[in-house]
């Protein structure tokens, strides 16, 4: 666990602004979810925007660090859409 925190901090320090952007997006995501709580349509739109923001963040970050590759983009898309489908099940109730 110590190794995890040590290496996580190292990574966060190395790309502070990028991760700050991701955290800010996440905080806005939670604020909007709270605002639209109970409204399924707007909650879905909020989740959709967050998933796309995450994918765009991935592309932006890897482009910035010159590690952008189609495999990375596919990875972010697959994770993002898996989560979107799972949340869509919960949103339907």
């Amino acid at each position: 666990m110590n190794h995890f925190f040590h290496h996580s901090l190292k990574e966060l320090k190395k790309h502070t602004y990028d991760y700050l952007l991701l955290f800010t997006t996440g905080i806005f995501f939670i604020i909007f979810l709270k605002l639209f709580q109970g409204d399924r349509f707007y909650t879905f739109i909020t989740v959709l925007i967050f998933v796309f923001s995450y994918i765009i963040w991935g592309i932006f970050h890897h482009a910035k660090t010159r590690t952008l590759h189609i495999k990375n983009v596919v990875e972010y898309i697959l994770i993002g859409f898996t989560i979107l489908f799972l949340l869509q099940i919960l949103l339907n109730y």
Partner: protein
Amino acid sequence: MNKFQRFLHHLFVPSYRNNYKSKALHTDFLAYYLIFALLLMITVKNIRSNYPNVLGFATDITSNKLLELTNNERTKANLNPLILNNNLTEAAEKKAKDMFNKNYWSHFGPNGETPWDFILGTGYQYEYAGENLAKNFLFSQGVVDAWMKSPTHRENLLRKEYANIGFAVVNGVLNGEETTLIVQMFGTPTTGLNQSLNQKINPLTQNKNDSITLSGNDMQNILGNSEKRSVINIFSFSIEATYFFLIFFALVLMIDFVIASKLHIIRISGKNIAHLVFIGFILIAIVFILKVGAIL
């Protein structure tokens, strides 16, 4: 290392065997997760449209669980547990159906219908009666918790005069939106001695219990619905599957990240920390998504 250990090692630990990345994070595995989520979503959607009236399907709420939780709260407050009453259950069911038929969400109907009309309509002569309403909750516990947090509903739920209770959990469309209505009805029957007195007491009792509504099915319906719920409990399964996937995925990301960092592996891959941050926010989001209910 036996075959199973080798498989787990291959699945979770980056090494030369899996191109220095946990196999569970390879693109083909990520595609399997996506297919699983997609199939689950389609299955749930199909079951919902084919069996729209299966009680307890849209939510994990059952009448007997609500009864158990209500009586637990009463026992904690040193009050008598309530006995499920067929008439109150029928009244609650009629009330719920009336709300769907006339498209309203209130203790009182658009034509002046009161909760007391539904109770008296079943032949239940009451000395005290009350009603609590809830909609769009996902769990029985959430419903009772919400009622207990509201002073008026709590007062109703913990009224010492009540002896009977009835519940209805009914799915339908309200204001164009699929809704699960929960009606909880309380009552104290009149005794033979004060039968004539009760008619005079009624208006007073109604005022006392204005904020309370109940719902229910008769006993046979409750049992039947509970059986259906236990067979088709895809809702609980989908929530558990979502949690299981998120926790499993987060653990794999953490293991992969620690080992790859320790070994100073340089590879073309997404950022595990970014994925973990994303999953963290999604877990918080689920809490908000699951809390959608309203009480009245």
